[in-house]
């Protein structure tokens, strides 16, 4: 029996998440892994928006900021459980994406990039300036999720790092599964048609505006959930999470690894999460190395790292 690419991707991902901890020399690696998965979730959203539908967003950190601050604000101000706050954040992000998506997605290319950029910066500005609510640039504390204590009650004792590693890994798996399902669905095919040529897609009867909006809303929810998970594991959040740099990071990760494939994009997230940790010795050159890697990938491996490398291997096999 031949395995479908979807099953293969999910199996590879699950195996990596489950097996790498055996090689961790200390608890710190769980933290890096958990960060990688959080970035992976946001980047999977970018794959749906950019890889499938061919639209760009330079403002997705804004949605991550909404998800993160929902977990900080809702429990404090309305006594909502943090787990419900994740859902609330995702809902707010989806509604905001729905409302601004329709006018914004009429734009193309650079214009779309700049409009989304503005959206992200607006969210960051609100978080920075509404001091009495958000604590301003100094940030605010986020309550404990409480799931770890629950697991302990069931006899499964995990350290903080271990818990977030496996929890974020699980969410990433679910996110990847949904994204891969979407790829193969009629909607996914329509999205890819739209990516190929908007005019052609419209002539075969695809509702281009609605589909773009759907992809935008879905990717906003991914970003929001990743922001929530980041806030909950850090137990502290500052407006940086919604900042411009974070938006750029998401796009860079997706493009670097290969924005057309879920596994590739997650691979890109992995590289950009690990590099700064490896490069601490050359902290001053970190930006330069990242820029260089990006330029080289853009010139020589235009589909992104993973798809290009895989193609090379397959080419040799045949």
């Amino acid at each position, binding site marked *: 029996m031949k395995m479908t690419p979807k099953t293969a991707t999910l199996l590879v991902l699950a195996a990596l998440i489950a097996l790498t901890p055996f090689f961790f020399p200390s608890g710190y690696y769980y933290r890096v892994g958990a960060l990688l998965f959080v970035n992976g979730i946001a980047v999977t959203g970018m794959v749906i928006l950019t890889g499938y539908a061919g639209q760009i967003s330079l403002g997705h950190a804004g949605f991550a900021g909404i998800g993160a601050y929902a977990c900080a604000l809702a429990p404090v101000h309305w006594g909502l459980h943090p787990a419900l706050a994740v859902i609330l954040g995702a809902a707010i992000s989806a509604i905001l994406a729905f409302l601004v998506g329709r006018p914004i997605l009429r734009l193309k290319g650079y214009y779309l990039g700049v409009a989304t950029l503005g959206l992200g910066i607006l969210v960051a500005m609100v978080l920075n*300036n509404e*001091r009495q609510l958000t604590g301003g640039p100094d940030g605010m504390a986020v309550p404990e999720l409480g799931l770890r204590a629950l697991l302990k009650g069931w006899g499964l004792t995990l350290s903080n790092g271990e818990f977030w590693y496996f929890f974020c890994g699980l969410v990433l798996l679910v996110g990847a599964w949904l994204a891969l399902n979407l790829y193969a669905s009629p909607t996914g095919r329509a999205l890819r048609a739209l990516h190929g040529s908007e005019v052609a897609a419209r002539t075969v009867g695809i509702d281009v505006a609605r589909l773009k909006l759907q992809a935008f809303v879905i990717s906003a929810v991914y970003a929001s959930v990743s922001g929530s998970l980041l806030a909950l594991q850090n137990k502290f959040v500052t407006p*940086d999470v919604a900042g411009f740099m974070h938006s750029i990071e998401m796009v860079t990760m997706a493009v670097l690894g290969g924005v057309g494939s879920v596994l590739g994009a997650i691979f890109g997230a992995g590289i950009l999460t690990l590099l700064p940790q490896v490069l601490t010795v050359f902290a001053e050159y970190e930006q330069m190395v990242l820029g260089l890697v990006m330029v080289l990938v853009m010139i020589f491996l235009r589909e992104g790292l993973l798809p290009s490398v895989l193609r090379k291997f397959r080419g040799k096999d045949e």
Partner: protein
Amino acid sequence: MKTILATTALLTMGLSSAALAEIRLGASISATGPAAFLGDPEAKTLEMLVEALNAAGGINGEDVKLVMYDDGGDPNKARTFATRLVEDDEVVAIIGGTSTGTSMSILAIAEDAEIPFISLAGAIDIIDPVKPYTFKTPHTDRMACQKIFEDMKAQGYTKIGMISGTDGFGASMQAQCKSVVADYGIEIVADETYDPKDADMTAQLTKIRNAPGVQAVLNPGFGQGPSIVTRNYKQLDIGLPFYQSHGVASDGFIQLAGAEAAEGVRLPGTALLVADLLAEDDVQKPVVTAYKAAFEAKTGTPVGTFGGYAHDAFLILTDAIARAGSSEPAAIRDAIEATSGLAGTTGVYTFSSTDHLGLDLSAFRMLEIRGGKWTLVE
């Protein structure tokens, strides 16, 4: 096979005993990014001090190894690096957190791991309420406000105007000043703000000048904003006494604002700025002059208050380890809390179980700019 095993065993023993003979300290500093002008002198100070300490024989004969990371001012990175310091590098204490955000991130990790942590950030939330393992060296914004209001009260001013930056520093100090101003019988009759990136603040200053009965103006702010405010203040010829915050207590401020515009500006600063003017019997004189000479010789740049915060954190930590006679985190923590009358560059530190800041208002000196130079106000 046996020889290989024996050699490996010998090697491992050799390595582990070598590892025991050094004291591992950790630091996460914002040496790059938006807070680099704070973090850069802090990082240089720590590197310089470790080198000097090891050259002088270390602490109780053991060398100190400093593992330092650059968090770029990002609290998320700071948390990762703090985790790395605790779990991977196995340090016995952490210095750092250049900004309040990064400090709050590191704090959570340090408290969980029960490792002493000395923050270099201003906000009072870091040590209030007191957390067992967290200390800090900079005075709080509230203390700066109190020092300024004390001086205003002595001068007989009762109605003042405030113009604050909307950045973290300015906004936090604005809030703290408003919360203590009533204690000094002073009323804020005009309260304006500006964005730190603004190039002109004459509109806000004109509004303050037109407020009825205003007698003095205070500008809580950080970076280049206060220099522009000072220039505009002179251009408008407002003529009222003008107070700046400790956020601009460096020679760079006088250069940016210009000696003429800065003439007569008062602000609360540390002894470090007026090292040459300190009385010979001042307890801070030796430590301040020594740090100033060493830092300026090493880096070729003038010392600033912020590098001084890192200096004091390192001093408190090494002093505590020497007194504890052990590099066990819990023992170091107890020794830090027992620190009494330790003269640093920022002030004289005396910690207790209810006070993890250890400074009082005497740590601030009221300074005035005269002819482009700092002078002490008695």
